[in-house]
């Protein structure tokens, strides 16, 4: 699936771009499901009635092709190649973005080995919202140094969240040195949860599918990090759902959990998540 050089590159830089992993037909199906879901999805507002991005879980029956990516060897084969230990697919979400995404990492947990495999449904470059990542920023001391200088966006800062460092410097997202991940539909970007990333210049309804994978924890520290992740992710998803749905649904739809086609990969993921307490946490909050 990945060459040894690609594996080494991923661990050094924290990011990999793989070209033409999905076909045009796949992208058309993803867009079709995305359209269906958007029609029934509420886009919240903030900052004086400005629309904000919306996001949903793809485990529902309307998006069965999208959620099957977690069980597609073209996708799960990537994180599996990166680690000797087992890796499990724990979520597949879609997001319709608007505006910029300020600089942030998805996690600061150094004992957590999380991988995102993401797919954009349109051609993107540095001028229209391509993902920007700071290569190597998943590693310390670099990762923490970016926190120390104030790179993390203050999401309470309105009208648009920005990093205290950028505000003080009079700089913008694009002034931060970074790799611009230009992509065409069918490409996938793989990144470590800890890498610092952002985007700028994207138009309304920039479409994004995110598949999250976690390496099986083998030490008590790694185990603790997975528990922390479950709690944090749940909190974030609940908040997001409040902004997105008038009538929230479960993050993991009962039909998906029932695994009607008895897909062994899905079952494996479900069993692992059950063991790790995912469903205990998530069942308390309908999202």
């Amino acid at each position, binding site marked *: 699936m990945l060459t*040894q*050089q690609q594996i*080494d*590159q991923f661990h050094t830089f924290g990011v990999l771009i793989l070209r033409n992993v999905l076909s045009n037909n796949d992208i058309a199906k993803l867009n079709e499901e995305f359209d269906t879901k958007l029609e029934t999805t509420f886009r919240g507002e903030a900052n004086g009635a400005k629309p904000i991005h919306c996001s949903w879980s793809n485990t529902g029956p309307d998006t069965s092709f999208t959620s099957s990516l977690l069980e597609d060897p073209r996708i799960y084969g990537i994180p599996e190649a990166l680690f000797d230990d087992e890796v499990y697919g724990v979520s597949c979400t879609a997001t319709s973005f608007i505006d910029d995404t300020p600089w942030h990492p998805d996690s600061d947990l150094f004992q957590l080995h999380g991988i995102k495999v993401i797919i954009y449904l349109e051609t993107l470059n540095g001028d229209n919202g391509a993902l920007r990542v*700071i290569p*190597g920023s998943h590693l310390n*001391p*670099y990762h923490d140094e970016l926190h120390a200088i104030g790179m993390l966006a203050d999401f309470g800062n309105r009208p648009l969240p920005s990093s205290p460092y950028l505000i003080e410097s009079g700089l913008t997202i694009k002034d931060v*040195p970074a*790799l611009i991940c230009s992509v065409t539909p069918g490409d996938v970007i793989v990144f470590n949860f800890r890498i610092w990333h952002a985007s700028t210049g994207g138009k309304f309804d920039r479409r994004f599918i995110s598949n999250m994978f976690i390496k099986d924890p083998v030490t008590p520290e790694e185990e603790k990090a997975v528990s922390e992740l479950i709690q944090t992710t749940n909190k974030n998803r609940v908040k997001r759902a409040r902004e997105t749905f008038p009538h929230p649904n479960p993050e993991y739809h009962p039909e998906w959990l029932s695994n009607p086609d008895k897909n062994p990969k899905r079952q494996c993921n479900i069993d692992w998540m059950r063991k790790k307490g995912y469903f205990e946490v998530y069942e308390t909050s309908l999202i």
Partner: protein
Amino acid sequence: MLTEQQVTQFHTFGFLVLRNIITEDEHKIVSEEVEKGYANKDKSEFIGGERLQLNWTNLVPISPYLTSLLENPRFYGIAQQLLGEDVVGFDTTSNIMKGDRTTWHPDAPPNLQGLKFTFYLDRLDGESGALRIIPGSHQVGFSDAIREVRLKDNNPGPPEDPGLAINEVPCHICETGPRDAVIMNYLNWHASWHGSSRRRMVTLKYYKNPKSPEETEALRKHMTEAIEDRKKNKTTINRTYSEFWLSNPDNSPVRARWISKLQEWGLIDKVPA
């Protein structure tokens, strides 16, 4: 001078792009001096593998303005701001690159404290030879990890999996205009891709006078290699200093101090009376 945030940015990422740091008039003078220098050079002296680089020092009588820039407070002052007061101006060079690429490399071994200003004098972007830098790669751990990555052009893996081409390495592309400069820590990994057959570059180079044993050892090692290289290859960057510059005709105290330091480091055998 730099703002506090620019200083932070330099130390965090190992480089900084300064926009329009030279005036249009200065750009004209600098370009003329580079062309004069190029006209003087033996064109058989292009070196550097794929990059096909011809370079020469600007510390010579035909480039008085470039010579003066090394001591100009606009640049020397910034070097002091970033490296501390005790900074030594090492050289200013002009370069013509005919090759379309420069492979990934840092300029110096770990612990060496120094920086260079680079001016490309023409507008460059990712498809025309702009400087590519891996931000943060001046940090030892990250730099060591990059050293292990297989690079098709200068650290290849096996033929069936040779590694990354220059333009595949995750990096920041420094798009620059004719009057811009990039200040870069010598330890940062950098490269270029798809350059034209006549890419111009001017550098101003500074070193921190080493303080710690590690810095002293790194400088000693670097200078020893530079001196050895100079003995072997008359066309390398590490040439001898001209009598013109060493004579310090304006009795600049800054230059006098630098000359004394360069002599101490073994780069100058004898200063003319």
